[in-house]
């Protein structure tokens, strides 16, 4: 009973805030009352700039401006607002008739910017100030004005660090939400691209943009995203990782059920497939939903290069991802339980390499894998050059020393090295992390039950993945339920079909918006390959031979 009461009690409620930390104070007509409230709310906030100004001298209008130093673009305030007020005082005061609400008057005559709006709540005024806008309180009006003056220091657009490509655009998302939405909109110049704004976090008030193609996306998916974003009230959101973990389907799974990407081109193409993107302020990672296991193996570059090469690469990715979690376990299983499976020469060679090693093979592998994880973690935390040195020292020097000291066998070093390389060949970091964890489970189960254990582990993994969904889409799609879209989604799986054959949008898109590619002079889907029209003759293409060409 106590517990229930504790849970229900609003933790942040006080005289001026409700339980969601929204300001309950009204926007008063009296400027003095508003100033008093603002001073109370921003007490001890030395970074807040507040100034009272009179507009005009004949019938002065008292206004009170508030903004946060460093978060605003002062040029906008000074050049497009304050300078006009001063000009008015000095030059043309008598020309303007005060015959409408003062806020309207200010908007019409003293603001040289489009981005100014009336606001009716104190909470909105304060929130605007905290977001980098400038709030103007007007005496005698129960409405205030908010001028968009955001202008804090930002990081410039740079190449994505986790999804580098050889061929393809080099711009990546940054920490500023508006830059990120622009990076996507630049790629889709369509009014059907919608950007819905919302905020999450009672104290952080983090801006979140929900992006989707209005006519392609399933409306139920957008609604589901909206619902899940509203499900929790949290005090602060500092990265899209928070949102990802709050909206995912299964919190128990180590597998990511949303796709986090730094690449605007990836988000743009996902939107065109009928997915929804969630852009979170202060995070360079944009979340894309729904996602499937298959989509984690799709890199942006796959579509920019020839299909044969990229299909080969994709198959390789699937193989290495299997190796990344299974190889150490299978090695242990065969070595300890089924050595008869190996050719005699190899079995003898393996046995010889383990001669004099005191540790059991399972312990060897666990020690080496853990050492590798430590090196990886240390490499990330340390500055670039030092990180590289750690890699060299750890990987080569310590590895060699451990082999020489007969602590581990050379074969273990090879296995761990192959596993490590395999891990980094997977395009998605979240998936890699899941496989890294799985590797330990497979090592233990294979050490206990050999290949039977491996099979049971694999069955467990498949059962888990089969039960997973991402916003209603099976995680295994299109390998499962592939018939739903007429098996066409298979064209972008292990084999990346040529672009002209990927003529239909995947299962996420609305039924009447499935056509992605058609011949320009036709309304129907086509699978006509590019190149000269087969009906054309060589003469048509090259032109009539001219006299003298022969």
């Amino acid at each position, binding site marked *: 009973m106590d517990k229930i009461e504790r849970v229900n009690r609003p933790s942040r409620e006080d005289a001026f805030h409700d339980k969601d930390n929204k300001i309950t104070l009204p926007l008063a007509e009296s400027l003095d009352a508003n100033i008093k409230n603002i001073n109370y709310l921003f007490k001890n906030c030395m970074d807040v700039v507040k100034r009272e100004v009179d507009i005009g001298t004949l019938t002065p209008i008292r206004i009170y401006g508030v903004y946060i130093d460093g978060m605003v673009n002062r040029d906008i305030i000074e050049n497009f607002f304050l300078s006009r007020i001063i000009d008015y005082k000095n030059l043309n005061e008598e020309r303007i008739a005060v015959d409408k609400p003062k806020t309207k008057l200010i908007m019409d005559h003293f603001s040289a910017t489009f981005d100014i709006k009336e606001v009716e709540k104190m909470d909105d005024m304060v929130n605007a100030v905290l977001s980098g806008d400038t709030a103007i309180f007007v005496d005698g009006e129960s409405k205030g004005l908010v001028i968009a003056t955001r202008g804090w220091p930002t990081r410039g657009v740079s190449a994505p660090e986790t999804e580098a490509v050889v061929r393809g655009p080099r711009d990546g998302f940054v920490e500023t939400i508006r830059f990120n939405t622009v990076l996507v909109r630049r790629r889709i110049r369509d009014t059907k691209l919608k950007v819905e704004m919302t905020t999450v976090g009672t104290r952080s008030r983090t801006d979140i943009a929900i992006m989707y193609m209005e006519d392609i996306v399933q409306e139920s998916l957008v609604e589901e995203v909206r619902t899940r974003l509203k499900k929790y009230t949290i005090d602060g959101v500092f990265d899209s990782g928070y949102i990802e973990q709050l909206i995912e389907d299964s919190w128990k799974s180590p597998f990511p059920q949303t796709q986090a990407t730094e690449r605007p081109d990836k988000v743009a193409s996902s939107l065109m497939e009928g997915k929804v993107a969630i852009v979170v302020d202060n995070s360079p990672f944009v979340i894309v939903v729904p996602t499937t296991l298959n989509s984690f193996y799709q890199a942006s570059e796959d579509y920019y290069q020839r299909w044969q090469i990229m299909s080969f690469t994709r198959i390789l990715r699937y193989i290495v991802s299997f190796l990344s979690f299974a190889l150490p376990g299978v090695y242990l299983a065969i070595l300890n339980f089924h050595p008869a499976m190996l050719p005699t020469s190899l079995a003898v060679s393996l046995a010889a390499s383990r001669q004099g090693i005191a540790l059991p093979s399972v312990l060897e592998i666990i020690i080496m894998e853990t050492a590798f994880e430590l090196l990886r973690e240390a490499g990330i935390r340390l500055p670039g050059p030092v990180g590289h040195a750690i890699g060299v020292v750890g990987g080569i020097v310590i590895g060699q020393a451990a082999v020489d000291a007969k602590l581990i066998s050379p074969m273990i070093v090879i296995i761990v090295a192959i596993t490590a390389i395999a891990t980094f060949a997977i395009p998605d970091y979240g998936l890699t992390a899941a496989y890294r964890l799985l590797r330990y489970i497979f090592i233990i189960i294979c050490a206990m039950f050999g290949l039977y254990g491996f099979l049971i582990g694999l069955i467990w993994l498949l059962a888990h993945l089969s039960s997973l969904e991402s916003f209603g889409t099976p995680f295994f799609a299109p390998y*499962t339920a592939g018939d739903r879209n007429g098996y066409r989604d298979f064209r972008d799986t292990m084999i990346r079909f040529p672009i002209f054959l990927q003529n239909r949008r995947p299962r996420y898109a609305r039924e009447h918006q499935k056509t992605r590619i058609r011949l320009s002079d036709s309304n129907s889907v086509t699978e006509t390959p590019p190149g000269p029209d087969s009906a054309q003759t060589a003469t048509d293409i090259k032109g009539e031979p001219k006299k003298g060409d022969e």
Partner: protein
Amino acid sequence: MYTHNANVSIRQAKILLILQMFNMSMLILPRIAGKIAGHDGYMLPIIGFAIGTLYIWAITSLLKRFPGEGLDTIAPKVLTKWIGLVIVGLYVIKLLVGAGFELRMFAEMVSQVLLPKTPLPVIILILLFAAQYLIKSGIEACGRMAEVVIYFVFAPLVLIFCLVIIKTDYKQLLPMFTARPQGMLVGAYYVSMTFMPLEFLLITGCLLNKPGKLKSVCLWAVGIISIVEVILIALTFTGVGMVTSTKQLWPVLTLMQSIQLPGSFVENQEIFMMCWWIMSIYMYISGAMYVASLTISRLVHFHRQNVTTLPLVPIVFFISMIPSSLAESYTYLVRFNGQIGIFFLFILPLILLILAKLRNLGGRVHD
């Protein structure tokens, strides 16, 4: 409720049925076929298919008459409440006993091929918990899993077939038509017991997203399995020898052991091949446990239907530990399937169908 929506697509239903039918019985099928029909054993699945169509007819006709319903509601309606409940109870017991014996045979096989030193209870429990993990997510997850597992099961099988075909002694299939018709019929009946998972449809038939296609799903699955059985029996006879097949407990396993891959990196590859077989057995055990669990949940009207999955683990475990030896577990499995299986596969659906017609019960009357 189970975690997800409880329905499967036509494709998933077909694959599920195929995998569930492709169980331990397959490993012993050539032995039974050879014993009963001699060199003509490979023809038994063809007659078995004909018998299978009778099972399909009985089950699908019953379910068609009561759209959206399963045995748990049909039996009490047709046979009066208490008799119906007893029948449904027996059905659940049959499923669990069948799964238990199947599991025991499977564990014996694993013990022989993969883990000779590991105690049988450990082998059994690991698989049971893995099955419980899948079925708690419902039939949708089972259907998806089947779509993936089918590649793991049938790809090695095709490889085996290809390798065996090269070195087979086709004289082992001769002389033809020597078996007595009566023997052929008995043999075909035993072979038709591999279609036992059709009985799952008495509960899960209404979970198809297109229930009208249930009959074609069953025919498709039974047809594929019959073809695989013909090939498997024929290849085992030609690869191992018909007489040897009748003397081996698992002649298919012997067939796999006989394969030598020239220049292969791996020796004793039957271990790998058997590994993939495990997945098929797993699908059967999961299927039986899922249907039993769902039936119990429906009978007692549990809101969260998957709460009944975990208590089934110890029950199936103890059933699987009943036979005292490998020979006894084999006898139990064959006798149980041969003598009890037919009741829920054909006799009960037929009785219910006839009674429903006589009593004017079921959807068609209202139509």
